[in-house]
Structure formats: structure tokens, C-alpha cells
């Protein structure tokens, strides 16, 4: 436990441990601008970088971090048996938009034509989920397509050689593939059709209960970041560029591919919703869980209510009660 140390204000911990990932969304703006450090002067903020949502889940279970960033796929697993990680989703960092897409050879023009082709994607990622959703929409069985598991840099290499006919992958590899391929479908389009994928914040339930103030401050900084991205795109891009070692222009482009949601939108019925009416996002997670079950990756699909309870709507509502 990290509670009750001297310098910390009531409701805030002595230490706030955050697991972040290199994704061009508001989290990196908050980190870059040191807003949390300023807003919680009595609290030591520890930023730890993670490479995948799976690692974030692991760190959450071991209690090594308080707030983390993970994709909707790993969070679904975390909320399902056997993991049952005691964490909640207080915020959606971004809804994946044009930054993940299925790129194929130019001669392939529709999803049905994927039959018999070799398509690569990093397994267990949001892209993997989206790819299978595309296939399902097109009425193709998984066995109709040769799906290979490759990491993004390897996808680029395999594409270069012509070993694969397409890939569902994210930027910046996506941009490289787009140069001589054609985008068949993007995650933004899929989201519109209900197959939404997102990067989520997760907070340990215990932490949220113990330090509501700190969580509120954290949520407000995230909202501030989203607003900055909307009002002063150049400043946001510069901040993200610094964090990602990218030029502001490239960072701005990547930022633009994501769908960022401010506090009001987060509380809308399509997303997290309110304590009284949990948003549709819970259903989204539920259907993702069903998908995982069909893949034999979870033991059982939890009740919808599990995911509804997994949305930290109360905390979200409290943080922006005045607005």
C-alpha cells in the first residue's frame, strides 16, 4: 500500500505509478507537459513504459502500477476469468481510427477476395481482433485465409519480400505498406459498424477507492490533454513528437488518425456512460469476450454486468461533476 504518507494531501497518495505506452494520445501530452506533477505536488509520479497490454495486465496483477494503458483486447481478458484483475476503466484514451487498417496488394479490392491469401497481423492485438471481424463480415471462415503472426517490423519485411498479401497493422508500419498497397478497411470504419477497438485506461479498484482525489485530478488532466489536442494541435503534436522521437508534423499526422474523446463524450451512451446508465462500451467488451471465447483464449464469457461494473463511471462523473 502507498497510502497516508506525510506530504500527500488527503485523498492523494505519496506515489502514483503509471504504466504508459508509446501511443500518440493524450496520455503522452500529460506526461510531456508534466501536468500531473504540477497538479499533484505532494505526490511522486512514476512513469513506467510498457510494450504491450499483456505486460500492463501482469504489472497490474503484481500491484506494480496504479494506472495503466492497455488495448481493449487485453482489458477484456483482464476483466474475464481466469484473470479477473481487480481494475476498472475510468477513461478511453482513444478509439482506434485510421491508425490501424488492413492494407492489401492493389489487386485485392474487396474482403471476399482475401480467400486463400496470406495476411499478417500481430496476434492478440487489437489489429488481430479487427482482422477477424473483417473476415467475419465478409463471410469468410478463419481457415479460408492464411493468417500469420508477425510483429510490425517483420510485417514490413515480409511485405517488402512479397511473402504476404496483406496485413492488419498500425502506424508507422501501416504508412510504409500504404505506399504500394491499398487500404481495404480501417478501424475507424469498423468502429462505425460496432467493431470498436480502443486504448483504455485501467485503474486498480483498490487505488480508485483509496485515492478518489488523485484519480479525479488524473482524469481532469486527461480531459485537458484532449482539449489541447483539439484547440492547439501544433502544441499537442510537438509534445507527442518529443515523447515519440518524431517530428511534430509526423506526430500530428498520427495524432489525427486517432479518435480522442473529451470528458463529455466519454460520458455519452456510446462510450462509458453514467453510473445510472452504463455506456454501450460494456457491450463492446462483452462481444470481444465472446470472440475470445471462440478463440479458446478465455475460459468463459462473463456476464455483461461484469463489464458494466468494470467501467468507472462513478469516478468519471465525480471528476467532472461541475462541468
Amino acid at each position, binding site marked *: 500500500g502507498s497510502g497516508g504518507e506525510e506530504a500527500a494531501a488527503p485523498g492523494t497518495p505519496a506515489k502514483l505509478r503509471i504504466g504508459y505506452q508509446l501511443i500518440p494520445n493524450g496520455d503522452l501530452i500529460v506526461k510531456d507537459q508534466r501536468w500531473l506533477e504540477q497538479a499533484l505536488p505532494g505526490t511522486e509520479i512514476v512513469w513506467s513504459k510498457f510494450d504491450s497490454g499483456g505486460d500492463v495486465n501482469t504489472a497490474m496483477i503484481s500491484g506494480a502500477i496504479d494506472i495503466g494503458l492497455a488495448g481493449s483486447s487485453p482489458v477484456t481478458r483482464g476483466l474475464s476469468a481466469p484473470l479477473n484483475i481487480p481494475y476498472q476503466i475510468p477513461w478511453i484514451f482513444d478509439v482506434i481510427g485510421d491508425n490501424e487498417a488492413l492494407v492489401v496488394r492493389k489487386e485485392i479490392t474487396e474482403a471476399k477476395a482475401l480467400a486463400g491469401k496470406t495476411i*499478417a497481423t500481430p*496476434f*492478440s492485438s487489437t489489429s488481430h481482433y479487427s482482422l477477424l471481424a473483417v473476415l467475419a463480415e465478409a463471410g469468410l471462415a478463419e481457415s479460408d485465409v492464411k493468417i500469420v503472426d508477425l510483429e510490425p517490423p517483420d510485417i514490413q519485411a515480409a511485405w517488402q519480400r512479397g*511473402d504476404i498479401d496483406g496485413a492488419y497493422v498500425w502506424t508507422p508500419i501501416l504508412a510504409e505498406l500504404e505506399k504500394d498497397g491499398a487500404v481495404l478497411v480501417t478501424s475507424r470504419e469498423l468502429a462505425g459498424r460496432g467493431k470498436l477497438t480502443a486504448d483504455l485506461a485501467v485503474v486498480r479498484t483498490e487505488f480508485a477507492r483509496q485515492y478518489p482525489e488523485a484519480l479525479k485530478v488524473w482524469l481532469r488532466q486527461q480531459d485537458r490533454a484532449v482539449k489541447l489536442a483539439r484547440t492547439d494541435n501544433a502544441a499537442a503534436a510537438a509534445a507527442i513528437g518529443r515523447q515519440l522521437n518524431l517530428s511534430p508534423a509526423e506526430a500530428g499526422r498520427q495524432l489525427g488518425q486517432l479518435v480522442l474523446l473529451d470528458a463529455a463524450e466519454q460520458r455519452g451512451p456510446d462510450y462509458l456512460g453514467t453510473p445510472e446508465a452504463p455506456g454501450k462500451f460494456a457491450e463492446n467488451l462483452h462481444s470481444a469476450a465472446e470472440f*475470445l471465447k471462440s478463440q479458446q483464449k478465455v475460459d468463459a464469457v462473463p456476464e455483461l454486468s461484469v463489464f458494466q461494473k468494470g467501467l468507472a463511471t462513478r469516478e468519471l462523473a465525480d471528476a467532472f461533476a461541475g462541468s
Partner: protein
Amino acid sequence: MRFAFRADPRRGMTAKPAMLRAGAVLVLLAAWQLIAMVRIWPPVFVPEPAAVWRQLVRTSTEGYSGYTLAEHLLVSLRRILLGCLYGVTGGIALGLLIGIVPTVRTLLGPLVTFVRTLPPLAYLSLLVIWFGIEEEPKIWLLLLASLPPVAVATAEAVRGVHEDYLNAARSLGASRWEVPFRVVLPSALPEIITGIRVAVGVAYTTVVAAETVNGVPGIGGMVRDAQRYNQTDVVILGIVVIGLSGLLIDFLLQTLDRRLVPWRGRG
């Protein structure tokens, strides 16, 4: 406490060690069961032995990711054996050259050291662009993992060959070209075999990395897949299967060592 500095090479495993080992395995299993039962860590990290057993049955019959456990294992074993075969052959050849030819030592010695410090995760995509996504890049990676220990051990062993053996061989008419094969290699054999044992171990640890590239079927790919979905029982099953097969190979290598080098400690 009994000390023995040398086991009689002709004596196999007697009844007592076998019982000792069986006992140790039982103790380990019991400890595992206990830890799982008292839940020091949640079951996702330490699943019960029974759960792993269930996965063994399930993956052996229904399969995992579309292949049975045996299929995963055999594919990986083939990769490991091929990779080690090339790696060991190359390592011995390189080690001999480095140990024997000064110019090669000067040039290739540092290069080998340089290459053997490189993290596979960093250059894997280069292997993909050179060799594609089928078996080649995996076997190359395993080759690159198993070559260095053999090369280093061989090169060092060559330095350790007694100069009198070299002199004797040359005086007995062995040509410059024969000496490496008739003297250096047999004399360095014990250390080379040690190098091979280390190399096989390193190749094993690399198999998961190798199978990040289109690695299903493959026991490493299976473990990775299971890990990403936090299916710890499958991960542990995979780990145990990997470890046991490694144990078997190492046992064979040790037997070979005892057969081939009866003079160890008496030469």
C-alpha cells in the same frame, strides 16, 4: 557429506540416484501444489498442477491453435536440431580457424564477439527480409544463437591444446591441414562438447523469440500465444515440455561426452 571428484564413467545411473531424482520431482510437485493451494500468487501465475495436467490432455487431444501438443513440439524440435546442427558445425569450423590462423583470429575474433552480443529481438526483422517468414529465419536465428558458444569454446580449447601434442603430430608427419582434425579437434573435444551443451541450451531459450515470426505450429509460438492471453497453465505446460525435451537432449550429449572422452581428468 560425500565428495567425489570423478564419477566412474562406466557406471550408469544406479538405483539410488534414480530414486533420489524421483523423490526430488515429487517434492517439487508437492511444493507447487502447496503454493498453488495457499494462493500466495493468484492462479493465473501459479496454476495448480492439475490444471496444467488438464491442459496437457486437452492440447494433446483437441490441440491448441489448431495443432496438437506433439505437433507443436516436433516442429520446434526440428527447428532446434537443424539450427544447432548448422550452428555447431559452423561454430567448430569458426572456432578452429580463429584458434589456429592468426589472421582469422585478428579479423573474425572481434566480429564473432560483436555478433554474439547482438540481441535477436533487434535484428529479427533483418532475418525476415533476407529469409522470409517460413522456416529459414527461425533456423537462422537458432543457428546464430547456438554458434557463438561453440565457436568461443572451440577457439579457447585450441589455445589449450598441449604444444607437445602439436609438435609430436607434426614430427610424425601430420601436415598443417591434418593437425586440426587429427590433434586439435580430438584434444579440444571435451571443451567443444561443453560448448555444444551450452549452445543447445541457448538455442532452446531462443526458440520463443524465433517463433515470434509466424511461429504456429511451434511450441514457442504456442507459449507466446498462451502468454499473450495469460493462459498460464498452457504456458507452464509448454515450459515443462520444452524443459523435458531439453533435458533429454542434454542427457544424450552427456552420454556422448562420457563415451568420447574417457580420459577426462586422467589425460
